[in-house]
């Protein structure tokens, strides 16, 4: 089934990678990008890719979030944990993301949107549930030419 059109800025970020680092009990996910926003989007894709086959999740419906944290790394935990928590209320599993981050006087504001569809276990080839987002391995930084957004999630 062809995927519906998505906003261009979202399509562009799809080519940016995410990966998983070795952790014995759980999983350390890492999103990267040319901007911190792209890295946050990739970290979110890494999160949902642990639960479903991302390529099979069509961006049919969207969900917006608005968050604040004092620091960028704490903002990453807020972002991922918000997406994780909301999925049980909306039933939406997301595969595409767009994020804007603005630095304010007291910290960082995030306006984000995710696109996805309600879970369909056989079609989405479900994998495992993610229980929570930890401060372990938490790292958001501009290294060389790329931004990294990573942390350990509990499986």
């Amino acid at each position, binding site marked *: 089934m062809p995927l519906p059109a998505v906003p261009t800025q979202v399509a562009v970020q799809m080519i940016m990678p995410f990966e998983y*680092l070795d952790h014995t009990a759980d999983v350390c996910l890492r999103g990267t990008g040319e901007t911190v926003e792209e890295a946050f989007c990739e970290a979110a894709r890494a999160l949902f890719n642990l639960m479903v086959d991302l390529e099979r999740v069509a961006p049919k419906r969207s969900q917006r979030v608005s968050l604040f944290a004092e620091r960028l790394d704490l903002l990453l935990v807020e972002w991922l944990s918000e997406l994780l928590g909301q999925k049980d209320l909306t039933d939406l599993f997301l595969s595409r993301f767009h994020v804007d981050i603005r630095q304010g006087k007291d910290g960082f504001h995030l306006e984000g949107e995710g696109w996805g569809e309600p879970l369909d276990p056989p079609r989405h080839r479900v994998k495992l549930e993610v229980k929570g987002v930890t401060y*372990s391995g938490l790292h958001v930084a501009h290294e060389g030419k790329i931004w990294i957004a990573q942390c350990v999630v509990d499986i």
Partner: protein
Amino acid sequence: MSEEFTLKRISQSEWLLEKSGEMRVPGRIFADIQTIEQLQTDVAEKKEWNALRQVRDVACLPGIVTAALALPDVHPGYGFPIGGVGAFDLKEGVVVVGGVGFDINCGVRLLATPLHKEDLSGVLSELADDLYRTVPAGLGSEGKLRLTLDEIDQLLREGARYVVKRGYGVEEDLVHIEEEGQIPGADPTVVSRLAKQRQFRQVGTLGSGNHYLEVQTVVRIIDPEAAAVYGLEEGQVVTSIHTGSRALGHQIGQDYLKEMEQASRRYQIPIRSRELVCAPILSDEGKRYLSAVACGSNCAFANRQVIAHLVRSSFARILGLAEEKMHTVYDIGHNNVKVEHHLVDGTTRALLVHRKGSTRAFGPGRRESPPAYRAVGHPTLVGGTMGTASYVMRGTNLGMEKAFGSGIHGAGRALSRRKAAKKYWGKDVKSAMAADGIILREHSLRGVAEEAPGAYKDVERVVHAATDAGINQPVACLRPLLVIKG
């Protein structure tokens, strides 16, 4: 800079991580040489996560008493190591979210049946199909019991008792659940609305990851006296349910991780790693978190109670077994924090004991054990891998002295999920189990690969180390006949 950890061997299966630097107490690790070598290799290879560092960092926390402990199933976690135990003075100490984890009171329920292995011949596959249909499992599964917000609050206060009142299981079950399935002090107002809303559809669901439902047979009795007390005999069919507090517990963990991050800064607690964010036990934040953990624990007890009922209904349908004939042997959690009384340097003290991937394992004579089990101590339930074996163990007097009455909870992972998924194919794992006569019904083949028996340490070795250290005593060995994986 490379890290150095000096380990002193106390006995075959006990090691001391000597106090140094900011450590307030030493670390004490109960493990065999292979496990210790693995932990040291992680350090030498500069792995980002190593359990020795985690033991050391726990030993640096304010108010920690005697030693930071790791049990034979130790492996790196976040905050505490998995298989970690930390006991804290109530006045000076802290309560640590990473000492409990997100799956609050994740644990195991063991149900006994009057059946023997032969009684299942010819119907095992049918039983597997029925259990697979009856017990909701896997990502996105939904329970049959739908609760309103008020009802969720009642469940959080009353735990397993609440769902028994709703017709799931019998009153007799409660006697054989740790803390009778209802931890006091659970105030639902300290649990966020989001946590409760996430639970609406998840009561009575198994989840995924390492959670499972197994129909097993008792293949070996090691401690006949305790086995008789627990009602276990060779050849008997039993059922184990491994699950936790589901989304409600996860959200409590997430909410309080954030709150404790702020509390750690506010109280200027000297933590070595952000994974160990915490609050003074007696602070408002500390008290609220402990009450939230009680809520999460009660949710987990209720969850296992509902699933036990569903399992009984399957056995009734397929084998005609009356539901009251499947007794609860015990139900015990392994991600907890509890106020307990322990003898420290000759004085009985109230301590806050965190157990992350570790169970309570109280030896003979403790009033916390059900009356019927008090003489030998309550059972502890050690989940093995789905292709090998699980164990029923019990606590010992030595374990009370040396390990705050704590026990191993499983085999402990040896390979990361990523490495396991690279090394094993879910279908191959399933075939290998089938060749061993074990039926597997799974919701995710990827999950099966990650949970392959080879991804875990050898449970026999872990049980042996706990036994050799004298902290736990094996009672019975259980082998799976059929496995339902989320």
